[in-house]
């Protein structure tokens, strides 16, 4: 009697219980499916948000790399960064080419790429620069810009009215090589839709190169030479066209097109170790008030502002997980009253309360595991499908690499919460089956 008997028939009972658990669950599949789906959705949401959070951050912090300093007129580092890299906002002043030339002569400086902003094409910012930009500007993990089609504009008078456009400009506007485009004055001249507002319509540009997508602001930018911007503004004074003094496009080539002032400059150093030295050199430059900004520091500063949103996102996803776990518990508890009869029958044919506890726990385990697994699968396949769109529309590069440790931690957290949520009703059923006597008092 007693335990010896148990040991002998334990396997048989376990097999019976497993069979009953399976068929009982199948019998309630219409309810259980929703429990699994709700857990799966919570897991998928957390999994995706965590990946988005991580990749947004890394996309953002890798908007520019391989640049040691951004130099411009003295303002705030974030402001200079936003304008020169993201082409958002403005800076109070430009910097003189004299300063650029002096900077280039510093013994620690390897290269200087001047940037000039102020015009736009159909809402896309126009960046005046030198062909060296395409050589030195890096993004992501020191990835260079790649031309999908065509070539960089020539640094000669022949190539004066040539433009290299970013991937998104090409896609949205449907431009191909050889397309003729006109620019308009001012960065904020948003999508006019017609050419009548293109104040630089007298000097059209030809698209000679289209860049591959990068997921950075480069995708949204039209690149032309510094001299081209100079040519556009030959007949302009103080931001307005010179009355009656139009200079035709060809005539412009005869003028001195070397700019005297630019917006900012990207600086690469021979050794990174010299960065503080050069930064100090820039900051104490006497001829004009300049500053040197380390991109990483400014991006970090910028992210700390955006990070508030990041935390809110995290809080919301946590709440979503909590809600779905609580609803799992509610569903299981609500189903318990119906199951009390089933459990009483099992008790009547010889199953003990511990078998009842085991039965419910078993169900909780596989329901939760199925939910979490399904959620991860949903999230991964969803992201795989959405990656091209995210890259193009939001410029976020989702990485289909191995799961992040934080993603795994979140999945495990959902798993544990789900188990706890299903153990609570199991424990209640166990107590009830002890207290109910032979038949449930429902």
């Amino acid at each position, binding site marked *: *009697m*007693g*335990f010896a*008997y*148990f040991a*002998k*028939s334990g396997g*048989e*009972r376990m097999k*019976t219980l497993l069979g*009953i658990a399976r*068929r*009982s669950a*199948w*019998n309630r599949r219409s309810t259980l499916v929703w429990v699994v789906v709700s857990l799966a959705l919570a897991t998928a949401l957390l999994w995706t948000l965590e990946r988005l959070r991580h990749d947004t951050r890394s996309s953002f912090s890798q908007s520019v790399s391989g640049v040691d300093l951004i130099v411009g007129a003295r303002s705030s580092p974030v402001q200079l960064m936003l304008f020169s890299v993201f082409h958002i906002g403005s800076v109070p002043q430009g910097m003189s080419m004299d300063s650029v030339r002096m900077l280039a002569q510093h013994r620690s400086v390897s290269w200087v790429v001047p940037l000039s902003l102020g015009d736009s094409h159909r809402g896309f910012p126009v960046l005046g620069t030198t062909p060296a930009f395409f050589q030195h500007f890096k993004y992501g993990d020191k990835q260079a810009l790649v031309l999908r089609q065509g070539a960089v504009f020539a640094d000669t008078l022949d190539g004066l009215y040539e433009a290299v456009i970013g991937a998104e400009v090409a896609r949205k506007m449907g431009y191909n090589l050889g397309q003729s485009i006109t620019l308009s004055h001012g960065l904020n001249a948003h999508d006019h839709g017609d050419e009548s507002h293109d104040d630089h319509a007298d000097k059209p540009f030809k698209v000679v190169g289209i860049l591959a997508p990068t997921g950075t602001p480069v995708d949204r930018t039209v690149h032309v030479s510094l001299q081209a911007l100079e040519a556009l503004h030959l007949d302009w004074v103080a931001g307005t066209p010179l009355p009656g003094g139009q200079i035709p496009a060809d005539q412009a080539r005869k003028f001195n097109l070397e700019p005297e002032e630019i917006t900012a400059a990207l600086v690469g150093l021979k050794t990174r170790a010299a960065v503080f030295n050069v930064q100090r050199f820039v900051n104490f430059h006497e001829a004009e008030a300049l500053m040197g900004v380390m991109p990483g520091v400014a991006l970090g500063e910028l992210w700390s502002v955006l990070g508030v949103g990041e935390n809110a996102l995290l809080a919301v996803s946590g709440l979503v997980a909590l809600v779905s776990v609580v609803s799992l518990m509610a569903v299981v508890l609500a189903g318990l009253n119906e199951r009390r*009869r*089933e459990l*009483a*029958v*099992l*008790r*009547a*044919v*010889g*199953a*003990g*309360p*511990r078998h009842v506890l085991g039965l419910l726990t078993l169900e909780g385990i596989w329901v939760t595991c199925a939910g979490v697994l399904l959620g991860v699968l949903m999230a991964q396949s969803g992201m795989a499908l959405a990656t091209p769109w995210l890259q193009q529309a939001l410029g976020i590069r989702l990485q289909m690499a191995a799961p992040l440790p934080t993603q795994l931690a979140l999945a495990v957290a959902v798993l544990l919460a789900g188990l706890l949520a299903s153990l609570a009703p199991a424990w209640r059923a166990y107590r009830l089956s002890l207290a*109910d*006597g*032979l*038949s449930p008092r429902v």
Partner: protein
Amino acid sequence: MIDIEPLRFAWTPGAANTLVLGRLQVAQGQTVFLHGPSGCGKSTLLGLLAGVLLPDQGRVALLGQDWGALKPGQRDAFRADHVGVIFQQFNLLPYLSVLDNVTLPCRFSSMRRQRCQAAGGPEAVAQNWLRRMDLPQALWTRRADALSVGQQQRVAAARALMGQPELILADEPTSALDAALRQDFMGWLLQAARDAGSTLVCVSHDEQQAVRFDVQWALPTLQKVGVSA
């Protein structure tokens, strides 16, 4: 085979509806008709007999074994071996077939399985009892919830008889049936219990059936009065 020594049981300590019983004994193979007004403790007494409830004072013994002397796990095993139960309704696992429901006790009790083995195996024994309960053979492989309430009660009776447990407890097994069916059901159940040699304790409001039992217990008059049957 049932031996109750003066006992006291309360669902909550100090509650008004405390069950107090004097000495009660039932011999093996007797059929007992247990009746009384609602709430007088009939189901509680069944719980005490089945060892799912333990008295606060006194003791209940089955086959000479005091329920209170067993650990919970041992009580479950002892019950599985020696007690068959029929509820008022909802006796069956709806997702199992009729036959699977009937053979369930053999899966939890190796003693009852062995007894069935001696009589041709659980399947054969189950079919035999189902036939005795006059359940059409066409229904045996159907899902249990495809049956009418009356048919389900007969399946439950067949299950309680599997492996000939020494004690069968029936808690108002006919209350969900109409009058004509009650007569038949009680007849089948009583005959089967006698053939199996099982003691039957049946709670019922249907006092017309009382005369068919060996012993009649009116619970209110039992309180504190010893009875030997």
